[in-house]
């Protein structure tokens, strides 16, 4: 929850500060060259629609897919972690810890290099573009962390609830689905949203794989504007502002939900 709490706790003038940085930076360099701060801002405004619709939108799409896949896989892995079968349980625990504690970039590169650029399903050649590999690469750590969220939530329900249902002849599966999960489902939502915010902020990693998201396109745009060093801070500052604008409401919502669900039970 740390990330969401930190973001949600940022003061209202944070975006103003970022903006101020964007505007103030070129002043320091302005004296040296012909390319001025006004020029740099002009370039940024020219590229802005492109950066938003072709760049950031793609970050959002990647985050949706990675979160969706990671959540489904993570839910299964989390339930496997509480399986009564020791082999299943230990394997799931190992996978969870392995993917949770690996650097995201390393996972991304492994997926990029390990997956073929196309797969053949029933004789049909399906291409696997790099962005899809990036989605899978990002889904892996999400899967592992969702797995922990699920395990933690299930184990936060007192064992007495398991016993009470067992004594009423509920099977283990019935107990899990009818009694335990309904009690802890809400508790999973804030940490799950927290991971979504972290994931979104990690999507620029995909630019290292050549996926055309916001950062990749910002770099391309700066190249298109003759690579003036004065462009760096406005463009990257803008990227930061966009991520902040997107993640801040999510973080606030996460924290308010966390409070709401903490009161109950």
């Amino acid at each position: 929850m740390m990330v969401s709490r930190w973001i949600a706790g940022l003061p209202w003038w944070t975006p103003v500060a970022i903006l101020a940085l964007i505007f103030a930076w070129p002043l320091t360099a302005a004296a040296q060259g012909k390319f001025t701060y006004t020029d740099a801002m002009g370039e940024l405004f020219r590229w802005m629609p492109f950066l938003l619709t072709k760049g950031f939108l793609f970050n959002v799409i990647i985050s949706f897919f990675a979160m969706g896949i990671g959540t489904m896989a993570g839910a299964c892995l989390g339930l496997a972690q509480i399986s009564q079968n020791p082999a299943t349980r230990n394997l799931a625990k190992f996978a969870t810890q392995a993917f949770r504690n690996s650097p995201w970039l390393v996972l991304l590169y492994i997926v990029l290099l390990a997956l073929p650029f196309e797969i053949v399903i029933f004789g049909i050649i399906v291409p696997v573009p790099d962005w899809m590999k990036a989605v899978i690469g990002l889904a892996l750590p999400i899967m592992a962390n969702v797995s922990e969220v699920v395990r933690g939530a299930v184990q936060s329900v007192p064992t007495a609830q398991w016993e009470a249902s067992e004594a009423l002849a509920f099977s283990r599966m019935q107990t899990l689905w009818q009694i335990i999960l309904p009690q802890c489902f809400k508790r999973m939502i804030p940490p799950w949203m927290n991971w979504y915010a972290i994931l979104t902020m990690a999507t620029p990693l995909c630019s290292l794989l050549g996926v055309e998201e916001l950062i990749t396109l910002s770099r391309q745009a700066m190249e298109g504007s003759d690579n003036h060093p004065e462009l760096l801070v406005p463009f990257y500052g803008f990227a930061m502002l966009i991520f902040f604008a997107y993640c801040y409401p999510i973080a606030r919502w996460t924290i308010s939900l966390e409070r709401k669900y903490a009161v109950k039970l």
Partner: protein
Amino acid sequence: MNAETNWTPDQPMVSATDVHKSFGELEVLKGVSMDVMKGECVCIIGPSGSGKSTFIRCINALNDIQQGSITVEGQEVNDPNLNKLELRKKVGMVFQQYNLFPHKTALENIMMAPVKVLKQDPKEVEDRARELIKKVRLEGKEDNYPGELSGGQQQRVAIARSLAMRPDVMLFDEVTAALDPETVKEVLVTIQQLAEEGMTCILVTHEMGFAREVANHIYFTDRGIIVEHGPPDTFFDDAKDPRTKEFLSQIL
């Protein structure tokens, strides 16, 4: 009566013979034997940690045993092939901490197992659940969540929840131990009523007055063995074993 086991009501409904149970190195039950006939109410008393909870949890297979035999209506519980779910349909259990499902209303708590486990018609189950609510004198509390009920009320919902499964035996593990003194009585009255209706009951309790009045037979346990047992009058007035006497003198 029972095709599989040839059990007839003149045989003990619950029969434990030389039950041994260990948690790792710690031997908690060291040869416990007890017979409970249909319609009987049996109370188990004894100092804390003597294995009372462990024993009654063995009867519905919440705990497994290492040695000995427990039968319920002739069905052996200490059997690796035991169908635990079938056993638990016959054996109801009420816990010290009520353990109601906090996300369900009182009525839903009662209806849950018959509908989900026994797959009975929800409409019919609801009618029965409302009758049970009446029986435990909680009319008007049907739609309250456990968190909105007092301890005594929650415990009566828990009893109704167990009864909704129409068990043949009820196990009660210190069900009044967590309650305020004023609410203890309302729960005991409910149990007494059940016993009088002929429900087979096995109770772990510290309520000596209740045990004396309601029980057909009393067992005193200490450190995993049954030290002494007998009908209430003999037990309370004429205890033989010094450990029983000491315990009774402390608690009465």
